[in-house]
């Protein structure tokens, strides 16, 4: 072959690569990109994930540090214009001072306008460990020693709610991801097996699914959560809680995957695989699973918000995550008391995180549902 022929072939090869390697996930991504809500949902999730993963970086104060005099500080305002009407390019906070109302003894928070603390970005303050390994003192923002910046106010023990909500995202999100992972693994495997084999295997599995579904969920959750020994370490409680959440949510997935697989089982390409002499395992994992995958991914993104909500709910009632772990639900635990809620409404602020997470995952799931089947309109 002469040189010309070689280059010609090479060029053809490159063109071919460019034109043809549109894998399944590329097709999904192309369609996903077109859905605005899905992109917004994805960004919401990514934002929360970053806030949670690097929560210490975003926290001006240590979320574990007690500061009893600062108990129930209302959210602090960030000012640009000072009391004399002068505009400052650098935002600042005033020192918050508390006085007890002489008649009701209710704390009254006011801003001491003589003490200005400019907000600084990329400052060094309390020490934390990047990814739990690398010690560092850098933070996104903060004020000088003596001043405070409670963006969302503080809780009963004077801990910064913003910092705590960021950190609580770690547990809330990883717990729901982990629980969803268990739920999806169990549900999809049982669903595929049930749908593919049919017969008595299907009957037994489906009756079992019905049995699990017929449990009243709330009392069962409460009972299971209540029997976890309080002496266990946090990691063990975390894993057990995830398993409890997964326990009752896999059934929906198993049902849906079963339906999908039953529809596929009758298609010619499954028959063709049998006709070639393919083993059951090959048929399940090479033909049935990839074709049900789009469905599984969608259910996955819709199960996560469910578990976030359930976790928040149980923790709010005080039977979910236990201190020293924190979750969004647990942060609102104090809001159970009507009096507390009336005087310190800001302790409900972690609910915004929950709403963002749930909406984000739902938008993402909707977008994925439309994108996951790229062959439907092609």
């Amino acid at each position, binding site marked *: 072959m002469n040189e010309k022929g070689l280059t010609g072939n090479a060029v053809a090869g490159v063109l071919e690569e460019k034109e043809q390697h549109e894998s399944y996930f590329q097709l999904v991504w192309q369609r996903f990109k077109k859905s605005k809500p899905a992109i917004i949902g994805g960004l919401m999730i990514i934002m929360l994930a970053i806030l949670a993963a690097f929560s210490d970086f975003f926290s001006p104060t240590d979320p574990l540090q007690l500061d009893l005099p600062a108990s129930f500080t209302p959210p602090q305002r960030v000012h640009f214009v000072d009391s004399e009407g002068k505009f400052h390019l650098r935002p600042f906070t005033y020192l918050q001072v508390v006085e007890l109302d002489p008649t009701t003894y209710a704390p009254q928070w006011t801003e001491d306008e003589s003490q200005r603390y400019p907000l600084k970005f990329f400052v060094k303050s309390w020490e934390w460990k990047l990814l739990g390994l690398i010690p560092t003192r850098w933070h996104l923002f903060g004020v000088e020693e003596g001043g405070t910046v409670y963006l969302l106010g503080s809780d009963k023990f004077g801990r910064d709610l913003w910092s705590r909500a960021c950190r609580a995202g770690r547990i809330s999100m990883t717990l729901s991801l982990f629980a969803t992972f268990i739920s999806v693994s169990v549900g999809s495997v049982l669903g595929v097996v049930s749908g593919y084999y049919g017969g008595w295997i299907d009957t037994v599995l489906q009756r079992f699914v019905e049995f699990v579904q017929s449990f009243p969920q709330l009392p069962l959750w409460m009972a299971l959560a209540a029997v976890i020994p309080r002496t266990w370490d946090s990691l063990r409680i975390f894993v057990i809680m995830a398993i409890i959440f997964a326990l009752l949510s896999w059934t929906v997935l198993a049902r849906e995957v079963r339906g999908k697989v039953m529809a596929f089982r009758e298609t010619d390409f499954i028959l*063709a695989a049998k006709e070639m002499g393919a083993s059951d395992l090959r048929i399940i994992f090479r033909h049935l699973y990839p074709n049900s995958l789009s469905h599984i991914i969608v259910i996955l993104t819709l199960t996560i918000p469910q578990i976030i909500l359930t976790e928040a709910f149980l923790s709010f009632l005080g039977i979910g995550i236990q201190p020293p772990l924190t979750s969004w639900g647990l942060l609102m635990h104090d809001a159970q008391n009507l009096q507390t809620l009336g005087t310190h409404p800001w302790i409900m602020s972690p609910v915004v995180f929950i709403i963002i997470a749930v909406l984000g995952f739902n938008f993402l799931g909707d977008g994925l549902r439309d994108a996951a089947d790229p062959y439907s309109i092609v």
Partner: protein
Amino acid sequence: MDANDNIILEVKDLKQYFPIHTGFLQRAVGYVRAVDGVSLFIRENEVLGLVGESGCGKTTTGRTILRLYDPTAGEIWYRKGNGERVEISRFSQKEMKPLRREMRMIFQDPFSSLNPRLTVKDIIGEPLAIHGVARGKAMEDRVAELMRAVGLDPAYMRRYPHEFSGGQRQRIGLARTLSLSPRLIVADEPVSALDVSIQAQVLNLLQQLQERLGLTLLFIAHDLSVVEHVSDRIAVMYVGKIVEMAETEEVLRHPLHPYAEALISAVPPADPDIRLDRIVLEGEVASPVHPPAGCIFHPRCRYAENVCSQEEPQLIEAEPDHYVSCHFAAELSLQGIVG
């Protein structure tokens, strides 16, 4: 039908019943007798056309022969490449696996028979992978060779099925069927899902490959004009049974069964000047759940007599190599194709 007759496949009294389940306990309340006593044989390198109207059990017959179903009764004798005859109707799927290299199938619907998540290379190469014949580069070479053989550009190897037209997809299916160099192919209406213009292309390709590779074909179709084009012999099926089987010309010119006569009269002649009196069958196709007593065709047969509703006719060799199941095969003089 003796052994030295070069017979590659012989089916004796094959039955395939499907239970009808109902109620909470899923009890079987009845059976669909999809295949109810089919007997046929195919000689090596020949094309046997299996015709009959929709729902008469042609597809089920083909699938049961390939043991995609477990037959209710009957025998399936297959002569392997080394000349050994085996009865496969009771084989386990494990015992069937080596035979699946030799006995393959072409599917009717080129859209649903290809997994949309696999590339053409993976689809055509899958049988090679399953039987451990070729992997990696060797597999790619074999796939390219097969694609050329069915008239596809091997450059399209990495594309997905949805990027191809119906005719091209059927070629992909054909390449997959040929990948393990089979001896016997059950072609289940391979062109009925295609446009008429594409039908001829695929049929011609199939015929060329059959001659070149020395394949034996069981060609299933509901359209006699397609079957007569490709078949050496024709078997006519009606509600789960073979009613007539003979050489193509013989069946067309000189049918012995009234159902075959009616079927042939429905084929439009090539010459538009020929006026023919088409035989329109009265009544409905017999139900495979409650087949009529005696000859299954008797409620619609215009020659039927008393004996037809009482005694079931057997498939007999009425004339040399011309099999028919009719009580009056010898007496009736039926109309064949005109012109």
